[in-house]
């Protein structure tokens, strides 16, 4: 928990304004918003945890369970949609036997659908642990997963 403690300490004079940035820092640090971290933020800002959950669930980017070792984001922007992003979703859901928004039981993979990743000329695009891969086809997908495993 030391990472979170540091963040809380850094924001010891924070006000409500800093709630989102603090949650973002926590998520950057541990990958999701754990229960303890929400309680800690509640104490810091003098807010009920229900309020914090209410806020965090409103926004798309907060996670409430640990992400997988490989966090896969599938672009569902317009161009990627037109280039068949839905079949990528199918592919991953079947391959890892999990649904979007979940993490596999062994903690290896998690799946998220995201808006345009900013590389529309290379659609369809996915991101694995923040690294973007473009022009995905059924053929090069396995290769990309292997490459991601190496880095």
């Amino acid at each position, binding site marked *: 928990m030391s990472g979170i403690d540091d963040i809380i300490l850094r924001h010891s004079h924070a006000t*409500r304004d800093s709630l989102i940035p603090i949650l973002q820092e926590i998520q950057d640090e541990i990958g999701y918003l754990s229960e303890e971290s929400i309680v800690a933020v509640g104490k810091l800002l003098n807010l009920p945890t229900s309020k914090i959950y209410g806020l965090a669930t409103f926004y798309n*980017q907060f996670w409430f369970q640990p992400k997988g070792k490989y966090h896969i984001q599938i672009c569902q922007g*317009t161009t990627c949609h037109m280039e068949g992003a839905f079949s990528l979703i199918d592919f991953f859901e079947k391959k890892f036997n999990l649904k979007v928004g979940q993490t596999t039981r062994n903690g290896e993979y998690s799946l998220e659908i995201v808006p345009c990743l*900013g590389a529309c000329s*290379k659609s369809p695009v996915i991101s694995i642990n923040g690294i973007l891969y473009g022009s995905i086809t059924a053929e090069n997908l396995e290769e990309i997963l292997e490459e991601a495993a190496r880095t």
Partner: protein
Amino acid sequence: MEKIHGSDQILLHHVLSKTSDEQKHITEEKISMLRRQTVSKPIIYIGSTTSSHVAGSKKTLKAVEEYRQEMNVDLEIIEVGSIGLCSLEPIMDVQLPGRCRVSFQKVTGDVVATILDGVLNNFLPSEFALAQYRNPLHQPWFNVPFFDDLPFFKHQHRLLLENCGLINPESIEDYIAWGGYKAFANVISNYTHEEVCDAIDKSGLRGRGGGGFPTGKKWKETLSIAANQKYFICNADESDPGAFMERVLMESDPHLIIEGIAISSYAVGANKAIIYTRNRYALTVIRLEKAIQQAYDLGLLGFNIFDSGFNLDISIRKGPGAYVCGEETALIKSIEGKRGMPNYKPPFPSTKGLHGKPTVVNNVETIANVPHIINNGFEWFNTIGTKQSKGTKLFSVSGKVNRVCLLEVPFGTPLSKLVELAGGVPEGQKLKAVQIGGPSGECIIPEDLQTPIDFESFKNKGLAMGAGGVIVYDDTVCIIDMVKYFMNFIKHESCGKCIPCREGSQRMLDILTAISSRPANSDGHGSLERFKGVILLESMAEVMRDTSLCGLGQTASNPLISALKHFKNEFEEHIFERKCVAGVCRNLRIYYIDVEKCTGCAACAKRCPTNAIIGTPRSPYFVVEEKCIGCGICEEVCKFSSVFFK
């Protein structure tokens, strides 16, 4: 300012137009060096933006570094932004001493050595050459076009994109060398707040965030209110699916935005400015943060800037992902640490905004115009564009085009030009429609593409300008699928405050889903029900438009209604014939079994969820059309490729 020494001092004096006679020579030399007018060794420029990274520009960069090491050549490597030709990335430029800077396209790591071997020996590998930059001081390359002769650039008016792809976005010196921060220095030393607002008002600048509200009017409103604190917010939330202009602009020329914010904040008397951008725009955030830090270091931001008595702090907020937070009142709530739900207007943020204080919210592109207007005068700005829409507009063009790109054209340009500059639709396909303004915009059929781009013409035609995302459809695109895609987006992003928006988008999505899937046992009655659903769509759209609180709900049905108007046939085909000509709606597909190939293994029959496949083992199986829901499982499980669909 006393703390700043040496070469920085020279730059600052240049910015302030206070270069002394003794400094004149050395200043000119420095500027010329920063502009790389004369270079003593080869310079390699590598386009480095989010999209070029995906294309492999990081590997290109590495390959150039390795080449330099291995061949032991003296080269300077500079990372630049994007010129807007995303499909041709990675782009690498080479500038040899005395020669024109020349650009190469699709330079992946593996071809770097070939290109450099050639060009460093004055031999141009023409298969990779894209174009060269005209410069009377430099010797041009033979047989390579000039950028300003390429149709893609010739028909643009690159004002905001001027520096993009040319300068190093992470260097304030580069920006200053090309005239940067002069407008801000001029304003803060010579203009009153009113005068700046006046100049922008007279320029006719209108908001680029979608609404087209006159920027000067908004500023004057905030300026006129007495308050102990005012805020300026740069809306960089760009989250319309299909729009990426602002991202490229911010990644390629972040200092332009910072200078624009500084001038705007001064104009309205705000000493705190906030850039609200998307958390996912990682590189954008990095470059903006760097730019802000560099501006502070030079004394262009902070306390008592240029001894003017004006203080300004700029900070960045990373939006945690909610489309509705692009709406200004929702955005403000998000900054306050609350759920980003829009509020009823009035009061407008310009009178009562962040923490209840007068707050101006402007779009990034709007702000990027400001330094140019100050530098060149409002009269000059008045000469660009049309009578009521002045200046230029950025567009990102994507979808079914040959060149996904970012471009800038003067208002008044016909829409068709955008498709043309993007290289048209892929060969063999036909242009079907153009969707402009993302999930709140209309689809426009080819016959209407002569409409000039400007706020008035659009209004007269009942179109929305939107932020500038243009999506091109060819005949492989199913209109119902796209409408459904946008409706799904709206349903997901509706903040839930208004019932018509929240429930309406869900119902509309249900209806669209119904007409794009095959019910397990459909009869004539089913078709009728689905048809009734479509009739309902129009009246639902009306209710949503009239009773939703914010633009999201009000405009949510635009894609649908415009599609219904222009592509009625396609809707009817989906409803009555259960056919998707483009072959996109998977759930309308009917599967067949090729009797020649089928071995009768029965694998498909066992898995079919509706028991639509019948037959006896070891002889060919058969699909009962009426029962098939088009799930495609049979095609997947068949080991003999004997299943196909129509």
